[in-house]
């Protein structure tokens, strides 16, 4: 039951700022965002996009069924390359997820106002990316039905997981990350679910949103604890971003393989994660902005800032590439030197040079503020970066595994169709969830936008 209210005398109208277009009130911000959920429905473009995503998702289900029925041999993995697409995809998806947490948590602690309109869908992106990532450690097992052996439960055999292994650390890190992301996202949603509940035009919607809103009524006593919880969660989630991808990088560093056993991996991976994550946020923000008319909330300034972060992390990744190469020659270890020469001139050289072009060279365009402020160019660049980051993980995994210390163990890796079906299927799964999210939940944090209206007005007062 929506209560209609014309704009009264004394209603707060925000002047423009670089993160919010002028002329918005608490009401207009609320109406605009909740209308997408409650009254707008779905257009044809949405339906086509959603159908494509679901089709890929169905492909994923098929791929997983075949995998479970026939085993990991349906993939291209062999000896020596025991890890192929599965781990590449795992690291890629987890990396993408990290930007959402950074935006929600770290930028909150840094009081960066431009995070307000992007944090809700960025955090949703994280949640769905972690869901996609989490599938792969389970799927890539030779005996996936024994996955629970990785968990520390009291068993009849008296054995425990090998707690000193990064693979077990991964179990805890990724589970923690998934849980904390879900909690952080849900906590942020509670007041907005209350908003949608109060604006619902049908009874069943009111009840459904009402259940998840937990009866939130905006009481000042509740807000106080809520804000405190938000800050504490943000404070907890920030080291989580760094630690989860560090633990993921340990999956590689703990081995003695040339190209893997490198102390630069933890910061290199974390920077790379944020790099690809922001690319995904941009890839989502630009279409959402256009198709849902959100230019007032997602201004060019937001895109500019995201572009800058992409550039900064891209430079850290570039530094890491240079350092790896330099250290291989500086250290003089013949296996490290061969590993670098093999990457550049061996059978996977095409992958290496495409990677350098797409991850290192092309993103240097981000130095230009004209490019950063242009949604289309930024969108295209985000594809370049995401492809680059996928290729980077592929290159790290495959080139180090296929030729290590002893030439008689050397081999080659090529993906099979099931590798592709499962990989593209997870992209379908991600977008299926994301389409559902933008249809049924407010994709921008409504109460934080209202707060932004309030702050902008306060600051404009002489």
């Amino acid at each position: 039951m929506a209560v209609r209210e014309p704009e009264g005398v004394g209603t707060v109208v925000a002047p423009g700022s670089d993160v919010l277009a002028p002329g918005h009130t608490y009401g207009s911000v609320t109406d605009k965002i909740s209308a997408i959920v409650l009254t707008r429905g779905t257009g044809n473009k949405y339906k086509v996009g959603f159908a494509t995503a679901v089709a890929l998702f169905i492909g994923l289900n098929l791929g997983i069924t075949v995998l479970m029925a026939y085993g990991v041999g349906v993939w291209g993995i062999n000896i020596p390359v025991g890890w192929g697409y599965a781990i590449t995809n795992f690291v890629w998806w987890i990396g993408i997820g990290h930007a959402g947490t950074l935006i929600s948590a770290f930028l909150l602690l840094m009081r960066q106002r431009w995070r307000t309109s992007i944090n809700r869908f960025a955090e949703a992106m994280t949640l769905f990316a972690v869901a996609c990532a989490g599938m792969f450690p389970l799927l890539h097992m030779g005996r996936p039905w024994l996955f629970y052996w990785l968990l520390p439960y009291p068993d009849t055999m008296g054995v425990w997981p090998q707690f000193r292994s990064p693979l077990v650390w991964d179990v805890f890190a990724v589970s923690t990350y998934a849980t904390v992301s879900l909690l952080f996202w849900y906590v942020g949603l509670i007041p907005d679910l209350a908003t949608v509940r109060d604006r619902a035009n049908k009874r069943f919607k009111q009840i459904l949103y009402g259940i998840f809103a937990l009866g939130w009524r905006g009481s000042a006593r509740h807000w106080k604890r809520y804000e405190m919880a938000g800050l504490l969660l943000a404070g907890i989630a920030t080291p989580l971003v760094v630690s989860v991808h560090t633990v993921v990088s340990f999956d590689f560093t703990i081995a003695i393989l040339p190209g893997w056993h490198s102390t630069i991996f933890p910061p290199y991976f974390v920077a790379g994660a944020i790099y690809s994550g922001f690319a995904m946020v941009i890839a989502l923000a630009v279409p959402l902005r256009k198709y849902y008319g959100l230019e007032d909330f997602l201004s060019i300034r937001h895109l500019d800032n995201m572009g800058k972060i992409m550039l900064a992390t891209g430079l850290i990744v570039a530094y890491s590439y240079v350092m790896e190469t330099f250290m291989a020659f500086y250290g003089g270890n013949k296996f490290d030197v061969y590993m670098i020469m093999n990457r550049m001139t061996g059978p996977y050289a095409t992958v290496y040079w495409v990677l350098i072009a797409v991850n290192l060279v092309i993103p240097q365009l981000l130095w230009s503020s004209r490019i950063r402020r242009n949604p289309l160019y930024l969108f295209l660049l985000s594809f370049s970066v995401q492809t680059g980051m996928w290729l980077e993980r592929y290159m790290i995994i495959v080139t180090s595994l296929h030729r290590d210390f002893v030439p008689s163990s050397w081999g080659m890796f090529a993906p099979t169709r099931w590798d592709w079906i499962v990989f593209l299927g997870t992209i379908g799964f991600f977008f299926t969830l994301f389409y559902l999210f933008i249809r049924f939940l407010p994709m921008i944090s409504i109460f934080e936008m209202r707060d932004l209206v309030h702050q902008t007005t306060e600051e404009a007062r002489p």
Partner: protein
Amino acid sequence: MAEFISAEELLEASKRASEAGYKRMDAYSPFPVEGLAEAIGVYKTRLPIIVFCGGLFGCCGGFFLQWWPNVIGYPLNIGGKPWDSWPAFIPITFELTILCAALAATFGMIALNGLPSPYHPAFNVERFALASKDRFFLLIEAEDPHFGLEQTRQFLNELNPREVSEVES
């Protein structure tokens, strides 16, 4: 219950109500307003301690989870590391600290707030739906010792609200 159009009006009204001696009251806003909780008399929350305890539990629990099997339960020689190889136990301990602290923060906040609360008399006022959009409300409960239906209504009207309504419980 009094309805206001801006956060500043509600803040001012809450301070005056607090000075007038009202204690059982609540203020509602569509976004958190700085200083509002203090204006109605709420200064502290137990949430930080709860989160800290959660984190501590996660930390000690996580470390013990690894220490017991590797030192007492079923020690295994992994790479020549000692049984109580504490550096190797740090990642999991750290993750579990974060997990338990986050669970404590979320469920602590929800529980301390008394949520889920499917019913509250404030919702009986139809205009209260605007509390989640763009209006601000001050509610004075009948259980407050200073409450009297007419005096409180008169007092609220002095605060210059847009409307004053009576809430049925």
